[in-house]
């Protein structure tokens, strides 16, 4: 089996970091959205 290995270039790393950072931010945003509704559910109707 032929296995080719290559070291990721600086651009590749940058692209990965960009994507990771962007998804991280998006996840935080969704987290805040859900958290506030859940807290209100617990806090609200009693």
């Amino acid at each position, binding site marked *: 089996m032929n296995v080719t290995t290559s070291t990721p270039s600086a651009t590749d790393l940058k692209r990965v970091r*960009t994507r990771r*950072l*962007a998804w991280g931010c998006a996840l935080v*945003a969704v987290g805040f*959205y859900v958290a*506030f509704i859940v807290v*209100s559910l617990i806090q*609200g*109707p009693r």
Partner: protein
Amino acid sequence: MHAVTDTHAVDHHDHKPHGIGRWLFATNHKDIGTMYLVFSCVMFFLGGAMALGIRLELFQPGMQFFDPGFYNQLVTNHALVMIFGAVMPAFVGLANWMIPLQIGAPDMALPRMNNYSFWILPFAFTLLLASLFTPSGGAAGGWTLYPPLSLQSGNSFPMTIFAIHLMGASSIMGAINVIVTIMNMRAPGMTLLKLPLFCWAWLITAYLLIAVMPVLAGAVTMLLTDHYFGTSFFNPAGGGDPVMFQHIFWFFGHPEVYILILPAFGIVSEIIPTFSRKPLFGYDAMVYATASIAFLSFIVWAHHMFTVGMPLAGQMFFMMSTMLIAVPTGVKVFNWTSTMWKGSLSFEPPMLFALAFLFLFTIGGFSGLMLAFVPADYQYQDTYFVVAHFHYVLVPGAVFAIMAAVYYWLPKWTGTMYDMTLAKWHFWVSTISVNILFFPQHFLGLAGMPRRIPDYNVQFTDWNMVSSVGGFIFGFSQLLFVWVILKAVRGGAPATDRVWDSDMTTGLEWTVASPAPYHSFETPPEVH
């Protein structure tokens, strides 16, 4: 700031797409920035027209032009259009244009998402404005959408809610783009503490946006389910609590105020050193002050609702934390003043607007301190004093900073110098009229005139007339602004690359040609 050794602005193959496709499928940060700025300008005039409608009705007591229901819709939608359609997109447009140029990046990190976040906006605002033409009219409960009042809206309510969701999604995507671009695409050698202050201010603003726009989305989702799906988040009949909405809303709302003003701080921190011909006094302190203001913005929200009936300890906490904001804000004002101290000042239009910002924003800041004081707030709550306060912060504050930025960077965008005389006319007419418009509202508020009402007691007539006259002069004087820009876009004396005669134009944006080439910094510049 720093010396630049390698500044290969690539302009030898400046091919750009043509026709409508250039704008519909735009991924170039300059094109998207331009679209944001044009959109924001249109929204300024729409929101401004609503404001003139309000001032027209308030010119004298009694009902003249509108029925009270429509007046309430005007007030509500004026706020939504100005906040989410005019001021925020203007700052995002400036961020799109300037952040890549200032950090030496070829474009924003996520260009297609950039396109998406812009093109959501026209749909969001079409939806919002269309709601005014439904049989029940648009949202009329104020931009704060407090239940139970907002839940009494007619069937246009979901249109307003969906429009707010779209604006939020657009803002969050814009914020992600700014964070990723600044964190990941700075030119080699540009450490965080070498970032231009406009970028710093925007980076911090972007974090605020990511933290609080989802909270607004959560709040309006809960309003929607309360209205249509029988939940009782804010309905006491089902065990809910309308005051909880106010807490959630202002947890978003107060940082939102800083989202509207921090980029303005960044702009003023760029302009004052250029026209004082001195480096900014206390760069590091400015960065930390901005970060402190952002942090404090999360722990002051309940000062918007002192009168709902909260424990004394709560009132004390929110009063003290609010007053604490004066410290980092004071640091900024003193640093701007110290930058000018013994500087070689000149008063071109950007500097004039930045100076007006400095004085008039400070007036808004001080009236904010007055409002932070609980016993006083019991008197000022829901009066025109509050209206005067936040309009001082937002109009000669945020809006003047936007105009300062446009006058500062316009030659870099168009490659031509604009008509300085006309721009100075625009400045003086705007500055005088904005004070005629908003200063008397302090007196009206202190005398007890409530906000958000279409009619008032005859004792308030005189100052309302003065305010309305100022409003009309201010509104129509903005046509001058558009004329100055259009004139510069059509042509004029060519601008140099550095544009301004100052040793302080050391940022990377001044190393590229004027007009900035369609593709810049394909080879990253080296920053020392």
